């Protein structure tokens, strides 16, 4: 211990104090530093904690495009209307830290493994690629001297100057130099440009068309040497029906529509997603689109993704079962097409271009068939051919004529301008020297009750209702002052049938028709017989269905059921939801009033003087309907002869008469340019043929099975 004592210098008291003070000073400094840490932590975790928590939800998890297939679309009997076809695809996912060098090297590797189509490579791509491959030569294109010259301009920012230099470099690449790019280089470029086109963390398809099994195998084997590359299944959307209302989707190359970029991006779509572009595909986008896989990218120190963890597995989209029946649709399309072609061969048909037939179930609004056809000249053969114009059934509107008289009559009851069983005199009326008359009664004087007025289609009976609405006193030969509010009264009442308003169909782009703006008395009378405002074929179907359903206006629907994807491809998946029946409103009329109108519609088919008398003679079913003829004008777009007077034919009805299960409307616009002579029964004939088809198919189904649709089997 002696030795130690000598070596260790004991502290003198003064020195001790000195050291103690300095130590305490140090200790206080450390205390201050640690307090700083705690203050900063408090600020981050307590004051700003919620902000960080929120930003976390945004940044860490990324929804990626995985190959979750879109939902399929079936008709009500299980027939596939839109299918997905699987195909092999090779994808590449870049990260935010991937360099062009890495991508180029990768593209070279891939090029040795697969054949890539080089058609999409542009001149610009080639130039950029040449610069990438020849950095030294590219730098020489704009010599330092010239760069210095360019930099002298003080008005330009560094960025502008660089852009200018880049542009000059590009422009100065000669064709010979571009020609030095070998065929292999071009193939590498074709792959490289696809890789470049992707967005960080979003798989970009390098090749999906014509990936051979061998290519898939060699790439799959080498995935560990190809960071970011993956082999997956891509899906092609295949339409098995040519109906336009099924709509279309964008291709992955097109990505989300430019017009709605922000809308889709806000909903977690990525730019190269396939989305519904029109009609059903667009309207039910939310159901059809699959749920994306949510992944968390595990990154190393440098931000490279080393692993991708799936947080939430993706799900395929929901399958949709439509209310339409493909067999019925097909048969009815044939009915309309054949009729249209035959008509077009007749005289005075220069304006005739389309025909429509809508058939729906008045009890629940299910659309059984939407048929819209256009007749066009095939430029190559010079023959008339038929084009699908299904969407015309709710995007085009026409003056429909007398078919609206049911609504006029019920409006009359409603507004006190007519009573059940009321008899009015049908005789030509004279307003300020201009005569207006019923078609069936050009000159005479006929007493009609309300049933016969509908059955025989009396214009004058309707005029008298209109006059009642307009609180006008009719003095033959004189003017007819009316209360202009009558237009509103009429339209409000018509709207209760769906006329002039949206029907509420589950498809986008519905048109409500033209609402006339003139308010001269004559137009009120025209309105009452369907010669003023225009209505779509679908509105007409909803209108007659409302009467058939005793006053319930039901929104027509094309979607019947939403189902889970089929588990085995044999039967439809589990039912998620059956779309509900949407009753939009109820007519204010009493049941007796509606029944009275129905009797009138029955008279049309079965009354001695009915406008379509004998139409259903011998048919195994009953029905009730209403015909219509409107004088219309066809706008040719031709300067010398811009407007031609034409005839529109229409027909509405329901069947069977006692217990309606279908309601239908037919419109054949601009059937003839000769307003005196035209095939006036056309619309009725289409209606009859459609009914025949419907009831015949129903009979066959009943004979085959227990009557219900075998709605779980998928029919390819």
């Amino acid at each position, binding site marked *: 211990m002696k030795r130690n004592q000598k070596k*260790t210098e004991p*502290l003198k008291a003064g020195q001790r104090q000195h050291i103690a003070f300095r130590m305490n000073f*140090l200790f206080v400094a*450390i205390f201050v*530093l640690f307090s700083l840490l705690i203050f*900063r932590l408090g600020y*981050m975790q307590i004051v700003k904690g919620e*902000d960080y*928590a929120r930003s976390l939800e945004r940044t860490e998890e990324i929804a990626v495009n995985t190959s979750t297939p879109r939902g399929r679309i079936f008709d009500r009997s299980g027939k596939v209307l839109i299918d997905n076809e699987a195909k092999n695809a090779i994808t590449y996912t870049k990260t935010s830290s991937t360099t062009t060098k890495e991508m180029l090297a990768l593209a070279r590797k891939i090029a040795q493994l697969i054949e890539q189509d080089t058609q999409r490579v542009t001149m610009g791509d080639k130039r950029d690629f040449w610069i990438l491959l020849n950095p030294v030569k590219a730098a020489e294109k704009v010599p330092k001297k010239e760069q210095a010259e360019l930099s002298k301009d003080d008005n330009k920012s560094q960025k502008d100057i660089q852009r200018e230099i880049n542009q000059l470099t590009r422009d100065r690449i000669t064709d010979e130099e571009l020609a030095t790019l070998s065929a292999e280089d071009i193939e590498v470029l074709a792959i490289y440009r696809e890789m470049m086109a992707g967005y960080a963390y979003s798989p970009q398809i390098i090749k999906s068309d014509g990936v051979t099994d061998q290519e898939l195998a060699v790439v799959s084997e080498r995935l560990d040497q190809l960071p970011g590359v993956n082999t997956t299944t891509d899906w092609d959307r295949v339409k098995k029906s040519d109906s336009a209302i099924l709509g279309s989707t964008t291709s992955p190359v097109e990505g989300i529509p430019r017009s709605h970029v922000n809308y889709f991006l806000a909903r977690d779509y990525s730019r190269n997603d396939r989305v519904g572009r029109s009609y059903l595909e667009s309207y039910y986008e939310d159901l059809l689109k699959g749920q994306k896989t949510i992944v968390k990218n595990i990154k190393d120190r440098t931000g490279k993704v080393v*692993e991708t963890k799936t947080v939430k597995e993706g799900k395929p989209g929901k399958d949709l079962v439509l209310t339409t029946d493909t067999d019925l649709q097909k048969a009815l399309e044939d009915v309309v097409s054949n009729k249209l072609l035959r008509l077009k061969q007749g005289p005075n048909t220069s304006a005739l271009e389309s025909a429509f037939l809508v058939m729906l179930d008045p009890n629940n609004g299910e659309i059984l068939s939407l048929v819209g056809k256009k007749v066009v000249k095939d430029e190559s053969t010079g023959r008339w051919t038929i084009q699908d114009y299904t969407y015309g059934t709710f995007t085009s509107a026409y003056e429909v004529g007398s078919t609206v008289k049911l609504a006029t009559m019920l409006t009359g009851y409603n507004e006190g301008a007519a009573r059940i069983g009321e008899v009015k005199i049908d005789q030509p009326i004279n307003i300020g020297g201009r005569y207006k008359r019923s078609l069936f009664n050009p000159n005479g004087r006929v007493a009609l009750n309300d049933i016969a007025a509908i059955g025989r289609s009396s214009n004058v009976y309707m005029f008298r209702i209109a006059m009642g609405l307009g609180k006008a006193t009719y003095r033959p030969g004189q003017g007819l002052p009316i209360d202009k509010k009558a237009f509103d009264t009429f339209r409000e009442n018509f709207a209760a049938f769906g006329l002039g308003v949206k029907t509420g169909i589950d498809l986008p782009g519905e048109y409500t028709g033209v609402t006339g703006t003139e308010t001269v008395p004559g137009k009120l009378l025209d309105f009452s017989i369907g010669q003023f405002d225009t209505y779509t074929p679908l509105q007409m179907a909803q209108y007659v269905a409302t009467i058939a359903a005793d006053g319930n206006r039901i929104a027509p629907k094309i979607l019947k059921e939403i189902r889970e994807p089929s588990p085995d491809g044999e039967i439809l998946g589990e039912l998620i939801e059956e779309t509900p029946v949407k009753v939009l409103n109820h007519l204010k009329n009493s049941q007796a009033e509606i029944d009275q109108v129905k009797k009138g519609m029955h008279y049309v088919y079965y009354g001695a003087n009915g406008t379509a008398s004998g139409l259903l003679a011998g048919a195994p079913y009953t029905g009730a309907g209403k015909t219509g003829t409107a004088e219309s004008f066809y706008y040719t777009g031709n300067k010398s002869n811009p407007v031609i007077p034409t005839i529109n034919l229409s027909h509405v009805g329901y069947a069977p008469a006692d217990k309606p299960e279908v309601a239908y409307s037919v419109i054949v616009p601009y059937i003839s340019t000769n307003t005196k002579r035209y095939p006036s029964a056309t619309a009725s004939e289409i209606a009859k043929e459609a009914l025949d088809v419907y009831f015949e198919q129903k009979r066959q189904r009943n004979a085959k099975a227990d009557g219900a649709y075998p709605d779980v089997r998928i029919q390819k």
Partner: protein
Amino acid sequence: MKQTNRLGERFDWTLAFIILLFAIVSFFVIGSAQTSEQYTQNFVLKQVRWYILGSFIVAMVMYFEPDQYKKFAWYFYGFGIFLLVFLMLAPGGPGQIAEMRYSAKRWLHLPVIGTIQPAEFIKTFFIIGLAKLVSTHNERSLNRTFTTDLLLLGKIALMLVVPLCLIMKQPDLGTSLVFISITAAIVIVSGISWKILVPVFTFGAAAAGGILWMSLFAQDMLDKFGFSPYQFKRVYSWLDPYSYPTDEGYNLINAMTAIGSGQLTGKGFLERVVYIPENHTDFIFSVIGEEYGFIGACLVITLYFILIYHLTKVALSLHDTFSVYVCTGVIAMITFHVFENIGMNIQLLPITGIPLPFISYGGSSLFSNMLAIGLIFSMKFHQRTYLFDADDND
């Protein structure tokens, strides 16, 4: 001659208990951190092993008396410098003894022992050397004057410059700063007059601030001094990580998001969601902040503070200057590590590769700290109480 003979009383149980608490915290946090599956090893088991080996180091260091360390101080210092020079000259190619990692040459890959980071150990050697220098100087010049103080400062500076240059070359900014802070703390306690210290520290602070300012607003000037744009980027990614979200900026954003989103009470054990690379080593505090929130983070900081408090108390109870300086050096080293590591996680300081003492995973770091703590144990263990009495009676 009444040195307490009962070993149990001479052992610093408090210090041992504090270290045990750190070990428990370390196992839990590493256990959670490794679930991010950046690596496939079980780091908890390895860390337990390091702690057991560390205890042996403590026992070994404790066995020797402080006087012996003082005697051999220059050899320790010399060995440290040798290691650094060796690391610099050793081949750094792939598979070779000093293979570069993350573009720095900091590690020695030794057979059997594994990978070690010499700079970690050299810190403790440096502390011993510096303590020896200062205590010897103070013993010799009993009458302090301005001149002797300046002379001491000069000697200290010379002693610092050699390892500092070698470490800067690796490059390893974090460890360089550790050396500077150890030196600063010992300089303060060494008793050098404030008349010298105030201008020196003011100048140092001004220089650091000036470089920082220039890296933002006068880069041309710094270019002439030999700084590279890479270093400016570092400053940017520290001050504005959201605009420069690459490498460090990216890690900083993640660490801050992790800690901030922990809020007051944290998300709970294993409930972490933010992925941060190397979160079992340098970014381990982000795990604490995220899983245990403000409360957990404060508890850990408080634990460090208790450790520092205890070490200060030990230092004040010691009787020979050499031990006091060693203690000071150890306090400075631990303080700087804690402040820098937590600070870089919460954007208070720029990111450097500095682990959190006793908690971060890693053998080198833990051994280095255990080495230092072993010195404290040794001082406490071999302390003679009679001198204390004698002093008071003086």
